[in-house]
């Protein structure tokens, strides 16, 4: 229990710990999300890849973007982007990084099936002219229209560099336990280092251009079970983990081998409509539900006080270090705080004109405590305002399939999820949920289509100066935020638990896109 307001006020957010000073032979790290399907940066996002493969630009713990493998990466004109590479970067096998490798790597993301395609959507699709090497260490990217989001995207895995020769030889096996990987990052994946189903062993890249890491061997294990992980961490049997469960807060803050660091994050819990024909597609219903849910209670319950009230689907941290941050912030501040108003909510339900005799089905992933709680809270809120909600717990694979297989969405009205943005930029979420499907709104299942919003968002993306981009976005946000296409329940913090003898981990959400273990070492 305790006063939640007080508790969250006391939190100090730390985006990175002081760099380690002592070399360490071996560190065991738990990956909470489970074993990755692949280490291919073009196909997957997980916490192992950032330590293996450099992105062209370097994402800082405070979510600012600095040069990295690319010394310079700028638009030279509204549709031409030039990348200049450092000359001292080598792959793990010692061969130098060349422009050809970068072209090869970036082209991976221009495939529409790629995880990062949306960032490359405006790149000239012709391979011969879109992304080309214009010098041994220079790559030029040509665009069909200006793109204000591209540079920041290169700080994410969309900008990850892999060796062309290796990638071509390995073919589709690249990134798998059999195929292996060839990158430039601070840790190397040893041959046979990935023992599928048990661990991934990586070793320090002594020749890393940014300086060799202090940890000689970094081994990842996979622990899905929250309480197992909590014991293993507090017993010191595992050295650290990112994204530990907030429900174990008391365990982590109690006596144990390490300490819990709370860092800023872009992650949030939300739910949204899944079908265009269901009552869930009616904004009044969503607004009503939003009005019936007490955010503060949600925070106390689901994230154990380790979160904050988030007004809309784009979190504050995502624009924190962007050039026009003040414009974004002003836009965000202008939005209404979510409040609880049951009367208004009932009113909305009544006005909605929807047939509410059949319960609405909310899909949540099975087995996760946070979602079980979310489901319970939604259900109770619905009950208060006369909405019957039914919970459908889905197995991980079914839940995942929901997002791209329409047949899996049949019979479901809402889906509750947790998501985060791995790179700075505000357009990612809105594009996915608000634009027409043809323009990248792949999750726009309720077929929301507001021409003004679309126009503002497109303008923001095509803007050539940050201020315009910001004001266009704010204009769009003003319209879409009240529509609650995703009912945002809470923003959460990044929780990192680390053995007290170690230090130097990136503890903000930037860990997803930067070598977070580079400075890890003994205190």
């Amino acid at each position: 229990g305790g006063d939640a307001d007080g508790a969250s006020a006391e939190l100090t957010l730390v985006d990175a710990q002081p760099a380690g000073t002592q070399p360490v032979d071996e560190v065991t790290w738990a990956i909470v999300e489970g074993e990755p399907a692949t280490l291919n940066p073009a196909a997957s996002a997980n916490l192992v890849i950032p330590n293996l493969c450099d992105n062209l630009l370097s994402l800082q713990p405070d979510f600012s973007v600095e040069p990295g493998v690319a010394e310079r990466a700028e638009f030279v004109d509204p549709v031409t982007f030039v990348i200049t590479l450092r000359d001292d970067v080598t792959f793990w096998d010692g061969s130098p990084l060349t422009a050809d490798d970068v072209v090869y790597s970036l082209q991976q993301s221009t495939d529409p099936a790629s995880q990062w395609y949306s960032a490359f959507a405006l790149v000239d699709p012709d391979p011969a002219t879109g992304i080309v090497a214009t010098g041994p260490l220079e790559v030029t990217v040509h665009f069909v229209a200006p793109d204000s989001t591209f540079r920041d995207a290169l700080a994410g895995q969309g900008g990850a560099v892999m060796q062309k020769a290796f990638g071509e030889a390995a073919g589709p096996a690249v990134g798998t336990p059999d195929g292996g990987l060839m990158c430039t990052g601070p840790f190397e994946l040893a041959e046979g280092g990935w023992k599928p189903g048990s661990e991934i062993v990586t070793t320090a890249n002594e020749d890393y251009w940014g300086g060799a890491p202090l940890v000689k061997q970094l081994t990842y294990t996979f622990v899905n079970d929250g309480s197992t992980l909590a014991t293993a961490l507090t017993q010191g049997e595992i050295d650290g983990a990112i994204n530990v469960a907030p429900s174990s807060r008391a365990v982590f803050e109690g006596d144990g081998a390490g300490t819990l660091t709370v860092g800023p994050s872009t992650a949030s819990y939300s739910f949204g409509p899944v079908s265009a024909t269901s009552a869930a597609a009616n904004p009044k219903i969503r607004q009503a539900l939003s009005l019936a849910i007490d955010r503060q209670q949600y925070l106390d319950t689901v994230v154990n006080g380790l979160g904050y009230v988030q007004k809309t689907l784009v979190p504050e941290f995502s624009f924190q270090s962007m050039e026009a941050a003040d414009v974004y912030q002003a836009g965000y501040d202008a939005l209404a705080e979510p409040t609880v108003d049951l009367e208004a909510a009932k009113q909305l339900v009544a006005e909605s004109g929807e047939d509410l005799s059949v319960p609405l089905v909310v899909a949540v992933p099975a087995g996760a405590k946070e979602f079980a709680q979310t489901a319970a809270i939604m259900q109770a809120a619905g009950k208060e305002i006369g909405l019957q909600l039914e919970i459908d717990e889905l197995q991980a694979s079914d839940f995942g399939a929901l997002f791209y297989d329409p047949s899996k969405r049949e019979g479901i009205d809402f889906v509750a999820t947790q998501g985060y943005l791995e790179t700075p930029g505000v357009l990612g979420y809105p594009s996915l949920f608000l634009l027409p499907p043809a323009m990248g709104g792949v999750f726009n299942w309720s077929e929301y289509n507001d021409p003004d919003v679309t126009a503002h968002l497109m303008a923001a993306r095509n803007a050539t100066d940050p201020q315009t981009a910001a004001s266009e976005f704010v204009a769009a946000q003003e319209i879409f935020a009240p529509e609650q296409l995703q009912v945002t329940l809470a923003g959460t913090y990044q929780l990192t638990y680390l053995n007290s003898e170690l230090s130097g981990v990136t503890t903000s959400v930037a860990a997803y896109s930067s070598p977070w273990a580079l400075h890890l070492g003994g205190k």
Partner: protein
Amino acid sequence: MPPLTRTVLARLGGMLLTLFLASVVIYSAVLLTGDPIAALAGGAKPTPELIEQIRAAYHLDDPLWSRYWQWLTSAVQGDFGRSFVYKTEVMTLLAPRFGLTLQLVLLTVLIILVFGVGSGVVAALRGGAVDRTVAVLTSLGMALPTFVVAILLIWIFAKSLGWFPVYGEGGGGWDRVWHLVLPAVSLAVLFIAYLSRVTRSALVAQVHSEHVETARVRGIPRSRIFRVHVFRNAAPQILAISGTTIAGLFAASAIAEVAFGLGGIGSLLVQAAARADLPVVQIVSLLLVTIFVVLNAIADLCSALIDPTSVAGGKAA
């Protein structure tokens, strides 16, 4: 043909038939658990070409029976296919995990046999207060879910006492055993209780039999009566149940594996099922079935060896 050979052959045939039928059920059941395309696409939205590619690569367009046949024949030849999720040979995924589960199961079996059979024997022999105490304890044991036992053990041993490690499989040798003690205990509790009861009742039935009476009048020492006339005669029954129990442990180990962060086949099955990694689910299920059937057949054979009268058999009522 000598009766024993005949029995062995008959059992072998039955075993293969069971395996075959079970494999059919498993193969078709697993297809219901998830969409192969979804799993194969690995979280990304599959393009039509990718779907086409996957369908071709995994023969998804062939008729079910021919896919099944292909699957079975290659599985029998040791080709277990490739994981949808890890894109690697299922075999490489399976081998190390199987070793770990095997070690866990062996340790568990040891614990179960010592404490389960042991307490059953004590209850049957001592009777009275001891018997009732064991009965209450076994009832309690049967009421404790494995995951609750696991949490309790973690809490007691790791948090409060710190005697045993509570995570991971450790290195080799004693360290491994050390790491497996708590998982094995948490797994064993339920089965200790069960086996204890079975043992007790099998023994009690023998203790009251006439041939034991004969041995008693003949002044045969109690210990020998127990060993040779009571225990040995009850052994086939205890053995049969033990075989089933041990065989079931391979599947039951999943919970302990998850709770203690062990990478065995049980946790692999759970994970693979959650991710719809069908080839893995199918092969692991088939493996579990095979282990089950083979262990049961071995237990049956052992019973037959102990009980010569069952070999001659064949007399209908």
